[in-house]
Structures are given as structure tokens and as C-alpha cells.
């Protein structure tokens, strides 16, 4: 009965939603603020990747909030599972092949993650993707070596300091410029690694922060006692 009602309600909702979305033609160019960003991004922010320039510069405030959401998720998870955290991860011993493979891959994965967030303003990717890749690499080590530990203290410091760098970068715009998060550094030549002013700094901070947060989150979950 409950299922039939749910299907009925959802079918009406879906039909209505589809009919609304059909009024928006697919694949057509529309006149919107996105066009302005495409036309001006290289000139105004110095970044080649428009998505990065929007995420970090034009809508950088959203990103500050986004970083906060991840921070909150890690904090909330820590609070909810507070007294269930054990000392050790309870995993089975991985086989030799897995361990050797993990050992070889781990530095490469971390390097890839770092590459992705350092080149965020030039190529696809950025702080979030890079941080997530690094956390995946650490996870691989967690699973292969039971004794592999990340320093809890270091994670907290990285997480907090990276967040503070982000907010202070924001305030630097308020102090030396006119507005919060404004770029106060030279833009440089578009397409070079050292360009786009404040964008790489923020994205590197975001990369460290996301990497540390996700690692801490996974560590916390893995150590939870059943």
C-alpha cells in the first residue's frame, strides 16, 4: 500500500518536474552570467580554467562555505562516534602482493593528488579533487598495513592551519584591497604555474585541508568499534 502511494505521488511529481524542465531547451546557448565569466576570466583572474576561477575567485565565498561543510562533517562525525573510537583498525592482514603494490602506488597517488591541486588553475581539477585523491592513497595504505598510522596531531594542525590560511587570505583582500577574498597579488602571465594571483594559494590550502579532513574521517570510521 505504502509502495503504491509512494509510486503514485512520485509519478505525479516526476511528470510535473519533467514538463517544467522541457520548457528549458537542452543544449542551447542562453544569455547568462556564465558568458561574462568566459569572456573575462583570463583578463580578470589570470586563471586559464574558468571553472577554477569561478570556484575560487568569483564565487570563492561558496568555497569557503564548502570547506566548512567538510570540516563540519568531520567534526560532527567525531562528535557522534566520540566514545566508540578504538585504538586500532580491525582489518585482516593484506596479502604480500597487495602490500607491495600499495607501497609502490602510495607515493605516486600522493604525487598525483598534489599535482592536481597545484595545477588547479591550469588543468581540470583542484583542491577538492587533489585532496580526495590523496585521501584515497592514504586509505590504500590503511588497508594494506595494519601498523600504518597517520599522526593525529599533524592532521589536526594541517586541517586547522589550512583553514586559517584560507580565511586570512580572505582578510588580506579586506586589508589591502576593497573586499573580502579579493586578489591582492599580481596576476602573472596566464597559463604559467605561478599565475592567477591568490588562486593557487587558496587551492593548495584547500587541497591540504580536504586531504587531511578526509583522511581523518576515514581513520575515525575505520577505528570505530563494532
Amino acid at each position: 500500500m505504502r509502495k503504491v502511494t509512494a509510486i503514485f505521488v512520485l509519478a505525479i511529481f516526476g511528470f510535473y518536474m519533467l514538463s517544467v524542465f522541457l520548457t528549458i531547451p537542452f543544449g542551447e546557448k542562453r544569455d547568462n552570467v556564465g558568458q561574462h565569466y568566459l569572456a573575462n576570466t583570463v583578463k580578470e583572474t589570470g586563471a586559464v580554467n574558468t571553472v577554477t576561477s569561478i570556484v575560487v575567485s568569483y564565487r570563492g565565498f561558496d568555497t569557503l562555505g564548502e570547506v566548512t561543510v567538510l570540516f563540519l562533517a568531520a567534526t560532527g562525525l567525531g562528535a557522534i562516534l566520540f566514545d566508540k573510537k578504538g585504538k586500532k583498525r580491525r582489518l585482516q592482514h593484506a596479502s604480500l602482493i597487495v602490500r607491495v603494490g600499495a607501497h609502490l602506488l602510495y607515493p605516486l597517488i600522493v604525487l598525483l593528488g598534489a599535482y592536481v591541486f597545484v595545477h588547479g588553475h591550469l588543468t581540470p581539477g583542484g583542491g577538492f579533487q587533489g585532496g580526495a585523491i590523496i585521501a584515497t592513497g592514504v586509505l590504500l595504505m590503511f588497508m594494506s598495513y595494519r601498523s600504518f598510522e597517520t599522526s593525529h596531531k599533524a592532521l589536526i594542525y594541517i586541517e586547522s592551519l589550512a583553514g586559517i590560511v584560507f580565511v586570512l587570505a580572505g582578510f588580506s583582500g579586506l586589508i589591502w584591497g576593497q573586499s573580502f577574498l579579493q586578489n591582492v597579488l599580481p596576476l602573472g602571465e596566464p597559463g604559467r604555474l605561478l599565475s592567477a594571483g591568490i588562486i593557487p594559494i587558496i587551492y593548495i590550502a584547500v587541497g591540504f585541508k580536504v586531504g587531511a579532513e578526509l583522511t581523518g574521517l576515514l581513520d575515525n570510521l575505520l577505528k570505530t568499534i563494532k
Partner: protein
Amino acid sequence: MNFSPVHFIAVPLLAAFLIPIIGRFSKEVVKLIPGAVLLYLSYVAISLYPHTLQKPIVEIIAGFKPPFGITLYYGPLAAFLVTMIMIVGFVIWLYSYKFIIREPLEKYYMLFLLVIAGAAGIMITGDIFNMFVFLEITSIAAYSLTAFLRDKDGAEAAFKYLLIGSFSSTFYLIAVMLIYANTGTLNIADIATKMQSVPNQPKIFIMILFMVGFGIESELFPLNGWAPDAYSQAPSPIGGVFGGIVVKASTYAMMRFAFVLFDFRSTFEFILVMGVITMVIAEMSAMRQQQIKRMLAFSSIGQMGLVMIAFGVGTDASVQAALFQIFNHAIIKTLLFLAAGYLVFHSGSKKISALDGLGHNKPITSFFFALGALAIIGLPPFAGFWSKLYILTSTAKGGFLTVIVLILISGIIEAVYYLRVVSRLYFKKDVSKDSVRRTPLSGIVAMGVLAIVIILIGFYPHLILEYIQPAAHDLIDKASYIKFGLLN
């Protein structure tokens, strides 16, 4: 460096990022940080207020002019509400200082700061997607705080809240993308100028999505299933945070959208009808509650219904009355939750029946509870009286006579169940054995501040009306919102 509205968000975030590091060295300092931050922000809010009266402060983020960058719109309304939540937040911190003894303390204070930062963000941002981000910050912090006690019911309540909350954010996000596809912009003022050209079908769909999305957080019927559980299972000060801060933020967002984006008659009629239904059902449910905090939660839903009615009438006077009611509800309901927190603590049970005779044993806390109860049912000479009076007169002028009858009836129901608790406190024989534990000084000061405000406004309502009038104009005046919001 001059004060700017961005401090309301950036400073709590900075403090929240700092807390884990400081927590490694000293727990005592961690407990003081939120108080210092909220005191500072109250000061910023008060000192910014005179500027907003001349002209709303529109803060540009990252140096890009609207509609290309994100802007913060800090008009008299935002100033009024932000000042309110900062002061209420400070009082709740003062109360938490001795009340929250459960580990992890630093996580509690981080979540507490971020829920306030998120609510302030919803109130001052001028960009719909940015509002989504702040909405998520507020809700995730609220979910975690609901489960903070880590007991059976807390986890259940938080999970329920999370499910309903994610429906809300999904609907909101779909609405945002429809608006972007139709108008090509995300700035609220810019959307308002382009809303005329949107065809009717998407417009109504967007309106419904927004109303459902915010209706969940503003406790509108039938979307308020999360509220009684979350209020009663969260630590008591967090009940105050929900009633005084989180709900206010999403009510603000709903009203802003109703007045700026969907200012057609049917929106307001819809809000009015939903408000009436919410109020009547909530007051009747409150009557049946056995647990004190659940009763307060239903009463809170009923009060928000009253606010919605006043907004739905939609005249200048009724909007003023609604804002007055929002303010009173924030102050009084916070006082009630804080007092109920210690009453529950002293009696050792959440049941109303366990409160028998506590008025003799714990006179101060009981007095504050009784004062809050008398104020919220609208007895003179307390603050609640004036706002209810204004709501009644403005609704009468709008010509909604049936609504007035319903408001009066639910007012009587409210009086019955509050007075029932108060009479239990004072006119029953003392059954509690506990005479050792005392209410700590910080808790008494926190409740005392709120009580003084209630009595003061009860005698001199014009003190607060002075601030409400410009705020109401700011909400109603769509043209000036567009003009200043786009920096023309």
C-alpha cells in the same frame, strides 16, 4: 580596518578552525572562545546598525560587481535579525558554559559557532546558491548537535531530521537550477528584475519548491515532523538555538523570497493558510504532550504559525507585528528552553509530572520558567502581550475575522497548557529529593538577562518598535532591494 558584514561569517569560521589547535593546550580557553567571538560580533552588529538606516550596506566579495560576484546585503532587516541572533547566541553560550559538561567539549563549541555563522550567512547573503551553502552548514551542524548526547533517542531524532532536511536541500537546489536556467543569474536582486519574463508554469513550480524547502526548516505543517524530536533530544541550550536562531534564519529566507521574487497574491494566501493550519494543529498537539521539552517544541511550532499568519496578511503593520513576534519568540522561547533545561536536570526526568513542587525547591529557575510562560501566552505587562496585540489588530485590519477567532482559541489552549505546568511547579507538594545541586551562576545570569529584556520590552515596547519599523520597510520595499542590491 572598518567593520563589515563579512565579519559575521569569517570570524566564527576562523575561531572554529582555531579551536582544534587551542584545544590541544587548554580546554578552558576553548570554552571562552565562542563567548569572546559572539560578544565581538554583537558589538560589530550594534555599531553597524546606524549605517544601515541611511543606506543598506552591500558588501562585495572578491571584488566583482553584482551580479557577477557574490554580494552580502546588510539592510535594516538583516541588521535587526543578526543583532538578535548574536545576542541570543551569546546568552546561550553563557548558559552552556557550565551546563555542557559532556565531552567532546571543543566539538560542541565548534558546532555551536558554525550553526550561528550559518544562520547569519543565510540572513545576509544576496545570492541564492550561497544561501544553499549556508543552509547546509546550518543543517549539518544542527544534525550533529541533535545527536550530541549520543543516546538512543538523540540519534533517532538526528537521523529523522537529516532525512527531512535533505529533502529540503534537494528541493532548494532544484529550485536554484530552475531559476538559473530561466533567468541566467544567481543574484537575488538581479533575479527579481528578470522574474517577470519567466513563464508561469516554471514560476509556480519554483515557488512550491522554495516554500517546501524552507517550510521544512521553518516548521510549517506538514513538514515539521522533525522538530519535536530534535528539540527534545538535543541538549537544552541547543533547543534554544533551534527555536531562537535556526528557525528564524529560514523564516527570513522564506519571507525575503516571498516579498522579492514571488510577490503575487496567491503566495501570501498560501502562507496565511499554512500558518493557520500549523498553529491550530501544533497547539492542539502541545496540549497532549507529557514531556516538557516536547511541549515547548510544539508551542514553538505554533508560534511560528502565528508569525506566518502575520506575514501572510502582508500589510506593513502586520509585517511589523510578525517581526516583533519573531523577536519575542526568540527571546522568550530561549528563556523557556534554558529554564526547562535546569528543571529537567534537577528533577531528573523529562516528564512534566516530575516537576511537581520544584517551585519551592528551586525558586530561581522556576521563577524564570513561570515568567517565560506568562510572557509567551501574551499576558501584560510582558513582551509577548504587545506582539500578539499587534498581530490581532493588523489581522483585523486586513479583514481576516475567522483567522482572529482561531488565533484567540489557540491562545487559550496555549494558556491552558502553560499554566498547567506553572501550577504544577508552585501548587503541588514537593516530591523532589534533590536539594544539593544548585543552578550555577552563569546559568542564572543568562536567564536573568533574557528575563530583564522581556520585562523591559513589556513596559516600553517602543524601544524595540523603533528597530522594527525600518526592518519591515526593508522587507516590503522590493524596489529599493533591487536598487541597492545591484549597486545602482
